[in-house]
């Protein structure tokens, strides 16, 4: 019921206002929680980005874009932004390429193990990112599984650098985030009906041609969604770049943490957060354009 209707009829206001109070009672605790736990912190963070960091390390209340200027005039932060984008795009691309055949397989398979196979593909979601990052440290580290075995069989003399750099971080993040891409693709692929492909096949199209002309275009929205998910989760990830990067991988998320907890430059940390949100927003806008194009 709308408020205008409530006003127009006086006779039943008692009944209606009762419902209004019920509604208020239902929403109030939740709204309070979301305000304190989400809206207020984000707002305070925005406000903080307009403050300045005094030369003595003290916080100066102000309304200035100083922190943004500091961030955007320092070549280091441009490199950080660059690294962030490289990580996001690299993870997005790799995860998409790897998830695609698996998702297609999971949608198509008629195996009685289908449920188990899907569960196995998304099970990593249920184990903490710290544990899985640790697993990758154990695999990619200088004395990790890969280097250890390759050196033992004599292929390598010295360990190759797979951790403490962007490469290792990307490998681990791809694995950690792939379940999201797989889930997105599975739900996006649901609408590709096998009969379309059979129809194309019966009309004489080769397997490859059927894939390129029918399956691929129809699956693109699911692919975009998967890519977007992995991209935004990768550029906002922190635990993996920090641990597997060993302090030598600099992306926006790690710098936000450093500025906030080590340097204690809160305005700069906030400004970097806002920049991260902008990258986020841009990517989502591009995604919506693409989806609109393909579905419209």
């Amino acid at each position, binding site marked *: *019921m709308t408020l205008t209707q409530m006003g127009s009829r006086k*006779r*039943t206001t008692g009944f209606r206002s009762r419902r209004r109070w019920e509604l208020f009672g239902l929403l109030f605790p939740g709204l309070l929680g979301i305000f304190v736990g989400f809206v207020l912190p984000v707002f305070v963070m925005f406000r903080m980005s307009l403050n300045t960091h005094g030369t003595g390390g003290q916080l100066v209340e102000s309304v200035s874009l100083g922190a943004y200027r500091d961030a955007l005039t320092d070549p280091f932060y441009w490199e950080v932004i660059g690294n962030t984008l490289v990580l996001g795009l690299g993870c997005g691309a790799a995860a998409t390429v790897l998830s695609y055949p698996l998702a297609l397989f999971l949608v198509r398979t008629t195996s009685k193990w289908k449920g188990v196979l899907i569960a196995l593909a998304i099970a990593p979601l249920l184990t903490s990112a710290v544990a899985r990052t640790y697993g990758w440290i154990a695999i990619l580290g200088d004395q990790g599984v890969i280097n250890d075995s390759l050196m033992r069989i004599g292929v390598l003399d010295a360990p190759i650098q797979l951790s403490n750099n962007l490469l290792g971080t990307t490998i681990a993040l791809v694995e950690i985030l792939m379940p999201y891409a797989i889930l997105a693709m599975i739900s996006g692929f649901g609408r590709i009906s096998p009969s379309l492909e059979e129809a194309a096949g019966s009309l004489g199209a080769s397997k490859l041609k059927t894939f390129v002309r029918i399956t691929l275009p129809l699956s693109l929205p699911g692919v975009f969604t998967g890519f977007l998910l992995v991209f935004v989760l990768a550029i906002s990830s922190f635990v993996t770049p920090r641990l597997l990067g060993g302090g030598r991988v600099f992306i926006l998320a790690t710098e936000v943490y450093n500025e906030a907890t080590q340097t204690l430059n809160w305005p700069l940390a906030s400004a970097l957060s806002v920049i991260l949100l902008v990258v986020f927003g841009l990517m989502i806008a591009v995604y919506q354009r693409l989806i609109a194009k393909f579905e419209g």
Partner: protein
Amino acid sequence: MSIHTAHLSIRNLQKTYPKTTAPAVDDVCLDVAEGELVALLGPSGCGKTTTLRMVAGLLDPSAGEIVVNGKDVVSTPVHKRRMGMVFQSYALFPHMNIAENVSFGLQMRRLSRAEAAKKADEALDMVQLGHLRDRRPAELSGGQQQRVALARALVIEPTLLLLDEPLSNLDAKLREAMRHEIRSIQQRLGTTTLFVTHDQDEALDMADRIAILNNGRIEQYAPPSEVYDRPATRFVANFVGKANFLDVENVEKLGNDTYRVKTNEFGVLEVRGVDGLDPTRASLVVRPHRLTTTRVDESVKSSRPASIGEVIATSYTGNVQSYEVRLNESAVLRVDQLTDTLRDLRMGDRVQLTFDPAEAYLVSDE
């Protein structure tokens, strides 16, 4: 029926849903006497369910009054209206057993556990399901669930029983049996009942009176035989039973409900009709089973109005044989007759149609 003796009186009820302009229910007035069963009949979207839900208190009217026992209940919240309702989906509580379902309303009325259980058992016996009291709704057949829903609605001795398409989820055979069961229980208990249906047979079979709704308005409110034999509008004639419509001209009013009209096919006739209709917007209704056919070659001279045409379609449904007879370019009439091999007609046969003008009825074209 005067308003003073009415048990339920709906006055100028109106409902316009948010973000729509046309009202879903438009100025509906309806009086229901104590113990009466009234059917709200109409096609989907005619406003019958909306009306019922407003009476129940599940929807707020935009305007109008709903008077029960002389008291306007519009501002009474739904749970205090003391009504019993059977829903189209039965709406049995899936997590409670049958006995708990039936005693729910009693518990809400703060009856003691023992008393509630006793009354619930009686109600279940009334619908012959006492032996299933410990089952869950999901373990029951559709017809059984329907009877549990009925027992749940009746056990609280409601001031009004509201039935929202209660039979539409049952198969045809069961539906007919349930009609009679509901009707006999309702008559035994004397519970005033409002019954929503889109099925004209159901309404004709069960109701004391039928309110036919179309586009949110009541087209006619009358006992079944009157609705069928003396429909108020073309819509009613068409919706309840099958109808042939003949175009009329030179409508002349003879008495309160008698008219002289001229038809192209049957000439000038004296017929009864709706009082006070607009002579320029009227049609003559002739029910298919009121028409009789004779082959042209064996036709006897009749004192009744007659017209000759050609059989263009036949259909057989067991006890009834139907024909479509074309009289001229614009008039194709349907004829229903009890199956009779002696008068079996074929496509292309030329036949003479006759009917008794006293059984035709002039209705408004609105």
